[in-house]
């Protein structure tokens, strides 16, 4: 009997705390200036669209063609360990987590007239987008993101390399 009483009290209190929390949360969100929509759009297309409305996503085939034509610089935003384990053949490593350190070495060698393509691994990986946004903020005009870049490149059996040092020379 006492078990039942305790469980009932526990359930009643849990429901009450959840209800009060939901009401407080929704109320706080509705009055704040930086409110988030209760149902957000987390699709890849939405995430690759800038505030200006420009879509910065590039297809793997376009990226491959630009790479072959020498019209693009491909930047691998993953860690040096991931880069050395395997990367797109024409890519250089610019790890987003160590951006300041690595960017100093390659900034002067990044051509402003070429397309810059960033990539990482995983459809939800935000390293490539963060890197692309930073480069756009720094004044680079044509920056694109190859979403889920490493995986789609490998799936298409395009050439890859292993090893190599980070930096534009590699």
């Amino acid at each position: 009997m006492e078990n039942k009483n305790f469980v009932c009290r526990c359930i009643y209190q849990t429901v009450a705390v959840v209800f009060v929390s939901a009401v407080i949360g929704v109320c706080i969100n509705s009055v704040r200036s930086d409110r988030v929509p209760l149902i957000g759009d987390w699709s890849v297309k939405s995430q690759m669209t800038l505030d200006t409305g420009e879509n910065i996503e590039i297809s793997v085939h376009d990226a491959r063609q630009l790479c072959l034509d020498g019209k693009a610089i491909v930047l691998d935003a993953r860690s040096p360990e991931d880069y050395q384990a395997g990367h797109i053949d024409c890519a250089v490593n610019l790890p987003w987590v160590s951006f300041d350190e690595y960017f100093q070495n390659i900034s002067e060698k990044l051509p402003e007239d070429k397309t810059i393509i960033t990539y990482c691994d995983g459809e939800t990986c935000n390293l490539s987008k963060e890197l692309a946004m930073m480069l756009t903020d720094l004044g680079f005009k044509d920056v694109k993101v190859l979403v889920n870049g490493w995986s789609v490149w490998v799936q298409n059996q395009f050439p890859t390399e292993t090893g190599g040092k980070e930096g534009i020379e590699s």
Partner: protein
Amino acid sequence: MIKKRIIIAMRIALGIVFVYASIDKIIHPAAFAEAIFNYQILPDQLINITAVVLPCLELCAGVCLIFGKWIPGSLFIIALLLLIFMSALIFNLARGLNIHCGCFSTSVQTIEGSSMILTVLRDCIFLATALFLLFNCYSESRNELKTEG
């Protein structure tokens, strides 16, 4: 008497931890929504509503524990949240997803992995505390009923 004081101290400490943990999430809901997205566990439609409600749930449960109201329910919520959080961490560690960027990486098994394991261990301690306090609540409620009977 000392046991009772220790239990009250543990309860208040757990409450403070949850109130503290909720504040940053309440201040930055968009960043928290992105963190939830990076876990890749919830459907997209539930990410924002979770980012809005979950920190308040932590806050309310923490405040209840600090002030000694609705203790069993708050402890149950906290234990459940810790279990869900730990399961999500272990699941992502197992599939090699770095929850800091939502990306697949070999380093998850090394550097990121060790920090995730430490987080899981920390949560284990909080979970053990919550379950101990919940069991203590149950014992107290049973003793009260026996005394009344």
